[in-house]
């Protein structure tokens, strides 16, 4: 059974500014000692998430709202497994599809087909699954003969179409998204919207961060607001207006 359980999750980032990354600074700091060290002891730390708890069951569609820098993306990345919790627990059962960055892991000099393969492997498909889906992915991308050409010759719209076609070909139990993905021209937009909707419908849990109230209203059943790393409780979508006003 699929579920997402997060309890007391805190994530802190040490911010390694250019200053702190230099070995020289460390060595010199140590040699000089005293004052200089005191002024720059350790990197500044940002608390990106503080004591966040939530629990999602199959069927839940959670919308994350909040200002820029409130921790939405950090929470999504933590759910995707990229950030390890500094405090608290994070437990997810089910296959996760993280649709956070379309341009992930592509090789501009490789052809479209090679990139489909590479991207799909990073998304966790086996070569056999990729072989089975290749035609369908290629067809959906609508790139036809361009697939045999290097990705660097593509327009940004074409690159996005390719990436979109691949990552939405994965079945997942938990879908993570940073804003509703919308790519390509008008015709493709419609087709891709359908495809993404059916992927989301097939998944049992969706977590989406968005600044667009309409997106949240149309896809989510629950909503949570983040403010400077602190999370509100998860409430029903009906209470969205109250949450925004609060």
């Amino acid at each position, binding site marked *: 059974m699929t579920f997402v359980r997060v309890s007391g999750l805190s994530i802190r*980032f*040490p911010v*390694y500014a*250019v200053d702190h*990354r*230099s*070995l*020289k600074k*460390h060595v010199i700091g140590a040699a000089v000692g005293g004052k200089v060290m005191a002024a720059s002891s350790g990197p500044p730390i940002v608390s990106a998430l503080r004591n966040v708890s939530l629990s999602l069951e199959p069927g839940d569609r959670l919308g994350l709202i909040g200002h820029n820098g409130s921790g939405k993306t950090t929470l999504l*990345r933590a759910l*995707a*497994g*990229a*950030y*390890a919790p*500094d405090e608290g627990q994070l437990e997810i059962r089910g296959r*996760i599809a*993280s649709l*956070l*960055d379309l*341009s*992930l*892991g592509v*090789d501009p*000099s*490789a052809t479209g087909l*090679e990139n489909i*393969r*590479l991207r799909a*492997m*990073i998304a966790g498909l*086996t*070569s056999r699954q990729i072989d089975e889906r290749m035609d369908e992915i290629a067809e959906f991308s609508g790139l036809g003969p361009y697939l045999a050409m*290097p990705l660097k010759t593509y327009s940004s719209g074409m690159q996005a179409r390719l990436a979109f076609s691949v990552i939405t070909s994965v079945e997942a139990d938990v879908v993570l998204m940073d804003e509703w993905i919308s790519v390509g021209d008008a015709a493709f937009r419609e087709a891709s919207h359908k495809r993404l909707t059916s992927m989301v419908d097939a998944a049992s849990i969706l977590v989406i961060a968005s600044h667009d109230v309409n997106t949240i209203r149309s896809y989510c059943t629950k909503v949570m607001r983040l403010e400077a790393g602190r999370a509100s409780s998860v409430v029903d979508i009906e209470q969205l207006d109250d949450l925004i006003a609060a």
Partner: protein
Amino acid sequence: MRDFKRSFITFRLVIALAYQDILAKYRGSILGPFWITATTAALTAGLGVLYSKIFGVGLQTYVPFIAAGLVIWGFISATITEGTNAFNDAAGILRQTSLPIPLFLLRVAVRNWIVLLHQVIIIIAVFLYFRVPFSAYSLMSFVGLALVSINLTWIALLVAILSSRFRDVPQVITAVMQFALFMTPVFWSPNKVAGHPLVTLNPFYYMLDAIRAPLLGARLDPKTLTVIVSLAIVGWIVAFLVYASTRRRVVHYL
């Protein structure tokens, strides 16, 4: 520990990424990865003729010696130097997915094995030309290669972690490897300075020796074997501890 296990489970992805790296680097060039082979071959021929005169050693013994030395050194040096970018290059992927971090280390290792396979041609060609006999000892060089690879992986792991934290480290490593090339008996025979600390305390000497000596038909020196086995054990313990204490941080370093 689980991270390492998961990295091996995704070995197909490792191979795909490593292969893609090679393709990307040499796309559009006619010789492709054989460019490295050609470069090393030219170097072997040039240095072989020149140094055999300087040292007064016959081509018959010197050319196979330097061919093996250059190929093995190239493998050692490239794995360590490329280790500096193992994590930095994968920043995007590491920040968004739960793919295990050591996967990107294996990618560097596999990439260099692929390069090594291209380079082996030189050794085979030179050995056939100079009729260097293959013996049971030659097979021991595979044992040497395996042990050296194990050592290189922990060195690359440490280098990768340090490089993601401190941006000076890649420069330092490049300089160190350049220096080590001349301090390690790649061009010259260790017998001339036998017992000198430059040789006895140089870990690269033992790595080189473990593969080269059996290849040239000598017995694998028990001392070399002891050194690289202990180096592998101690090194992996250190690297493992460092990894365990930094694995949560690496993604923030990037």
